[in-house]
């Protein structure tokens, strides 16, 4: 079963992502802050993770940089979730190595489509 990680300090957002993806056959891991997100990612090495930008302990951008600079975790597809819509934040996410960027509020259906698309590409692993 493919592992997905959802890191967001808002339980409602985690529940939304889980509900969106639960019809598919995924093993979903949750993290409520940046430090936990980093630990869970290293532990589970998910195929894809959703990473909220504004989180306690460590920001999503810091977590993203840490994961992308580590050969063990660099392959994880990271999709940033942000409540900030400024172009500057998008650029910061890209610089940190994020693969994609969703702005809140986002469409769960679009999110699901994105997940399918990404996992289709990384299937060989």
């Amino acid at each position, binding site marked *: 079963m493919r592992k997905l990680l959802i890191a967001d*300090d*808002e339980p*409602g*957002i985690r*529940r*939304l992502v889980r*509900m*969106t993806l639960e*019809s598919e056959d995924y093993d979903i891991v949750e993290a409520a802050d*940046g430090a936990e997100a980093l630990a869970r990612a290293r532990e589970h090495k998910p195929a894809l993770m959703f990473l909220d*930008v*504004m*989180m*306690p*302990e*460590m*920001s999503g*951008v810091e977590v993203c940089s840490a994961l992308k600079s580590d050969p063990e975790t660099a392959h994880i597809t990271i999709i940033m979730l942000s*409540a*900030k*819509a400024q172009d500057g934040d998008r650029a910061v996410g890209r610089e940190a190595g994020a693969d994609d960027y969703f*702005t*809140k*509020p*986002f*469409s*769960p*259906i679009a999110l699901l489509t994105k997940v399918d698309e990404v996992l289709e590409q990384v299937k060989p692993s």
Partner: protein
Amino acid sequence: MLREGAYVFTTVPPAKGVSGRAEAGRASGLEAAAGFPILVGGEIAGVLEFFLTDPSRPDEETLQTMTQIGTQLGRVVERTRARDELLAGRQLAAAQAEAASRLAAIVRSSQDAIIAKDLRGVVTSWNAGAERIYGYQESEMVGRPLQEIFPPERRDEEPKILAEIMAGRPVENLETERVTKGGRTIQVSVSVSPVYGPSGEVVGAATINRDISDRKRAEAEVRESEAFKGAILSSIAEGVIVTDAQGRIVLINPGMERLGGWSFAEVQGQLLTEVYRALDQRGEPVTAEHPRIAELFEEHDGTFTSRGFAISLLTASGDRVPVSWTLAPIKDGSDEIKGQVAVLRDVSKEREVDQLKSSLVSTVSHELRTPLTMIQGFSELMLARDMDRDKELQALGQIHSAAERLARLIDDLLSVSRIESGSIRMELESADLAVLLDQVVAAFGAAGRHVQVHAEPGLPAVWVDPDKTIQILTNLISNAIKYSPEGAPVHVDVRRDAGEVSVAVTDRGIGLTEEELDKLFQKFFRADSTDVRKTPGTGLGLFITKNLVDLHGGRIWVTSEPGEGSTFTFTLPTVAEGHDAELEVTAG
């Protein structure tokens, strides 16, 4: 002998080669000489000389006749000389008279007071100028001491002046005061010269006084005007720098000394551009050649004004202070530029507000987007999918709580807006705080959070707006819950004090640092940075709470230990304290 008027006869002595004249005489065959004096005024003015070829003495009658001729010649010369002298004397007298009358005319017509006095200081002459300046007629002043026109506090000037004069030294341009006949004190410039008698001794003094009241007044006006301009410049809170046409600093005001950190003495004469360095936001120096100069300054009629927070000033201490910087040419009537005036204003506060505003936009955006995401996301899923009843209820529950959260946020923003505009309406009445507290605690209990309340029995009624009091309690208790670890109890302790009731809300949360305590009640302050947030929230709650407590005439404060937790305490006035409940209620 000639000196006594007698003649002299002499024979030429034998040749001894004595004198050339005798030699020459002898060569011409002359043997004797006779001399007759020409006496003028008892002095020998000349001699009649006769040389004879016969060495024998002429007869006495001839000699006497010749002597008489000499005498007569002397008299003629005497008379001629006397006549010449008489003539010259008359001319001299005329010239002297003319000079004297010219001098008198000058003295008469002089605008200055020309006064003569003797060595005791008694006036001996007083011209029309003196009459005009001092108002006293000549007849009133001659014979009286000049000191009478001295103001009492300057009476000691006269002995000093007289001492100088007696020593033969003039007094020049002494600026002092005198009093007119009308009692008016006037400013005068006094010059005094000694007057000498025929034998060279000082016999008196001539004094010239000029009325300089107008000049003094004009000078005082200029001084006053300069002082006023200086005071204006000093009063301007902004920094002001004035340069000459070459850009050299001629003046800075105290505001600029404070802003830049250099004293006027340190920067005077230096190039403005070498002392005060403008930096752009990246810290690069800003000069006329800066590639983005047009983005940093806008220009209008030769005056340059920095835009927004584009420019910082590098101060003496190396700090970068954001400034608004205006540079204008100084022109007189012509188009010639005399220099420049720069006005710098510290805009740190404005920049802080600006940054706070950006952070508010960012925070509010985040706080709005999070519940919106849930409302939009769960409803989208419900529309797109067939869900069982249980899932639907889960989704609806999420939507509902997100909507409530949005409503609270909007309430908070409105409260802040009303607080800032001063338009909050307080509906004060006598209320039982214990009852209000029970309501609030019950609501938290319903949401599954336990609050331990300890209220002193027999609390007096408080004079409050009940809705606002509930808002205060709700804010503080929900904050305490938010910052407490899951399950840790929140305590509320209510006590009575002199004229007030105090409520203390204690959590076992993260606590606060000194720095955080300072800013706690500021708008949008959060006990964590923007990107790494420990707890959700806008940072509006405590700002609103403090303002609501203030509006009740109460106080709010916090005690905290980082890691130990915090206690927020506020007070509310009791009804007994200066309030007539019935009256105020009817009036309200």
